[in-house]
């Protein structure tokens, strides 16, 4: 660094510039790590840090690594791969032990931090070696450690996950019923990560026959294997191609297992199974009908009403939401069936009152779909405790929730259109809701920069302008500064909204407005 022959002041300036560079690098690194951390947290892949059999307990290191530590890790990884290579070619006494030890070392390096040295391992040629370690007849410990290494290699960036391609057939093979449970589970975990990467890899796994063995692993009543398999399956069937979802529901015993787990399993397992139901209900009509015909709906409603685990509530709520959205028959059952109807609405209200944003938003969405149903459905919601909660949310909740609430309230005010007739107002609901102050919430939506929300707001305003008795509509809208909000659209870039707003202003606030005051 500093040249000793230089006068001291020169030395100092060089020293400080180096210091600055290092500090700058650290800051840059921190930004990168922050971004990477965010991506890692949000990815559908999961790093395996503690063994599936739960025995390998070691301290989890501090995740913020600075440059020097990372490069040390990389060097260690490269030498671990080298070591593994040697043990594989070695045929003599104690070969297995040597191999397993080398694998274990590599596995530890790949499990330590949030950003394991995957790139270094790949560059050093780890994959072909790991594939060899997966060969049939290998001892369980070897299979386990190799699968664990592959799991964590697959947990990172897309290119890294794709590097697992050569290993896939073997991983699938070791899911078989003859494999030991920990081995099968670790392979399932690795495959779950691969499936979580994207639809191309999902296609490949499906064509390699990964689905049936994973489905079989989900059948027992309990155990961590069941849970890992369920998670891997949820990644495998998430589409967008619906064929995998349909194939899954047709596998022997799967429907029964799903029902059994949703009924009896602990919340962790029920969560993963619920996510499977989310994808089944979103993608496959075949699956949806089979699920609806069983008593699954009831079980979902019970879970929704009784659980307090956000993890579980999200997929349960969403499954119900998908089922309600997709199928009029389902909705009828849920809302008119004996016993379920009150519980269902009550459970949805519980979600509306929750502190969790996702639950509030998706519960409002479900209610909006119910409110889009028959008059009885609307009355069911209207007469429930939902309305005061919704009105409160309309004024205080974050934007995305307010938008969903708007759908509910508006749907409550309009009857289903019989054939091609014009949809009629349900005056009682409209008058009551407006009387309880919902109009200002809609005017706020008109003012927002979101096209869909503005449209909703304008459409509700039209209901008020058209439908309120005694021609009270225009006055009410004016009081809430609705005219001002509509006039903003004169110079709005969206022609549709412009025309809608202009029509309303022209029709209800023309020059004659206010004459008979």
């Amino acid at each position, binding site marked *: 660094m500093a040249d000793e022959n230089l006068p001291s002041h020169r030395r100092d300036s060089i020293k400080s510039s180096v210091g600055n560079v290092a500090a700058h690098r650290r800051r840059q690194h921190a930004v990168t790590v922050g971004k990477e951390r965010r991506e890692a*947290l*949000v*990815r*559908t892949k*999961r*790093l395996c*840090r503690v063994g599936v059999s739960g025995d390998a307990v070691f301290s989890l290191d501090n995740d913020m690594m600075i440059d020097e530590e990372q490069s040390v890790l990389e060097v260690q990884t490269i030498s671990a791969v080298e070591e593994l290579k040697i043990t594989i070619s070695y045929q003599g006494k104690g070969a297995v032990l040597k191999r397993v030890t080398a694998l274990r070392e590599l596995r530890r390096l790949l499990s330590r931090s*949030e950003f394991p040295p995957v790139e270094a391992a790949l560059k050093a040629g780890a994959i072909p070696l790991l594939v060899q370690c997966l060969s049939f007849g290998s001892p369980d410990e070897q299979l386990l450690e190799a699968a664990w290494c592959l799991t964590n290699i697959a947990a990172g960036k897309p290119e890294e996950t794709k590097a697992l391609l050569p290993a896939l057939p073997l991983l699938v093979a070791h899911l078989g019923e003859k494999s030991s449970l920990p081995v099968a589970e670790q392979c399932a975990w690795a495959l779950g990560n691969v499936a979580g990467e994207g639809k191309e890899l999902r296609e490949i796994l499906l064509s390699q026959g990964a689905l049936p063995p994973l489905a079989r692993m989900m059948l027992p009543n309990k155990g961590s294997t069941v849970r890992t398999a369920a998670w891997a399956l949820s990644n495998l069937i*998430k*589409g*967008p191609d619906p064929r995998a979802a349909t194939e899954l529901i047709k596998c022997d015993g799967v429907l029964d297992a799903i029902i059994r787990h949703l009924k009896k399993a602990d919340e962790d397992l029920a969560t993963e199974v619920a996510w499977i139901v*989310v994808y089944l209900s*979103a993608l496959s009509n075949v699956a949806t009908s089979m699920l609806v015909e069983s008593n699954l709906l009831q079980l979902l409603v019970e879970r929704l009403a009784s659980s307090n685990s956000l993890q579980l509530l999200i997929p349960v709520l969403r499954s119900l939401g998908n089922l*309600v*959205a*997709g199928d*009029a028959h389902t*909705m009828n059952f849920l809302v008119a069936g004996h016993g379920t109807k009150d519980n269902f609405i009550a459970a949805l209200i519980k979600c509306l009152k929750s502190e969790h944003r*996702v639950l509030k938003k*998706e519960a409002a*969405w479900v209610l909006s779909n119910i409110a*889009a149903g028959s008059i009885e459905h609307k009355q069911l919601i209207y007469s429930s405790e939902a309305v005061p909660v919704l009105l409160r949310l309309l004024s205080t909740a974050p*934007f*995305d929730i307010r938008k969903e609430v708007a*759908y509910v309230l*508006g749907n409550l005010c309009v009857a289903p*259109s019989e054939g091609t007739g*014009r*949809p009629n107002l349900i005056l009682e609901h409209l008058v009551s809701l407006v009387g309880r102050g919902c109009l200002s919430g809609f005017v706020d939506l008109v*003012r*927002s*920069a*979101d096209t869909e929300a503005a449209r909703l707001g304008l*459409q509700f305003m*039209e*209901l008020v302008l058209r439908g309120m008795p005694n021609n009270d509509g225009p006055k009410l809208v*004016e009081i809430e500064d609705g*005219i001002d909000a509509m*006039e*903003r659209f*004169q*110079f*709005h*870039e*969206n022609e549709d909204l412009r*025309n*809608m707003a*202009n*029509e309303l*202003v*022209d*029709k209800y*606030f*023309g*020059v*004659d*407005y*206010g*004459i008979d*005051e």
Partner: protein
Amino acid sequence: MDKAMGVEKRDPLGFPQWSPVRRRFGPDAPFFASGNMERELLAKQVALDIIEDEKQQLENMEDVEDREIFCPIVGCGAHLNSLDGFEDHYNARHTASCSVCSRVYPTARLLGIHVSEVHDSFFQAKVARGFAMYECLVEGCGIKLKSYKSRQQHLIDKHKFPVSFEFFKKTHASKKQRQKNQRKLSVHKTEEASSAMQVEEETIDGLVSAVSKLSTSDNSPSSISFGRRHTRGFTFVPRALQRARGPDSSPAGAKR
């Protein structure tokens, strides 16, 4: 899977009335993104020590990044930090209001054009003498037309404005204005009635002088009506525009 789109019922005016439809989303739809993120965060919570703060940050970040919001006012395009930011931005940048008639415009330039065209007798005088005074509303175009209508046509032809667009909208006045006008009207009823009649019979030059009597120093809208009725909160419609509508067109006060 697609959204279940119901056919919207349009009433004779064309307004797409509220029509309840079930809305369905595919598993990858942005609608579900925050729930998906929550799933992964919760799954990794224990293993990676995610604290509540960080989780909150992540959730907020996602909302912002997935929504690129830009100001929707024509010609603005300002990038907005969040939907909440839009209101502040709008109030700061798009509420230039006319001190004479309280109309609000989204830019200072449009306000200026409005004031010239509607409250400036000098402008009207030049129009009357055949000068091309009506500027194109699109910044940078520079074209000037001789009449409100031809400017309108230019906007439609060259700049794809909708046929229904009206720069100068016949609009209501606010409640306060109307009450003010009501008081003024009841006091000056007879006087104004006669002057209204007078103005109608006058020539262009007479119109110009009548307009100059209104003058922009008067802070309340004129309550003179060119039509048969006394409309409250009446808004000034240049004779040029009335003429352009044709002889069978209704007086300024009638609805379209």
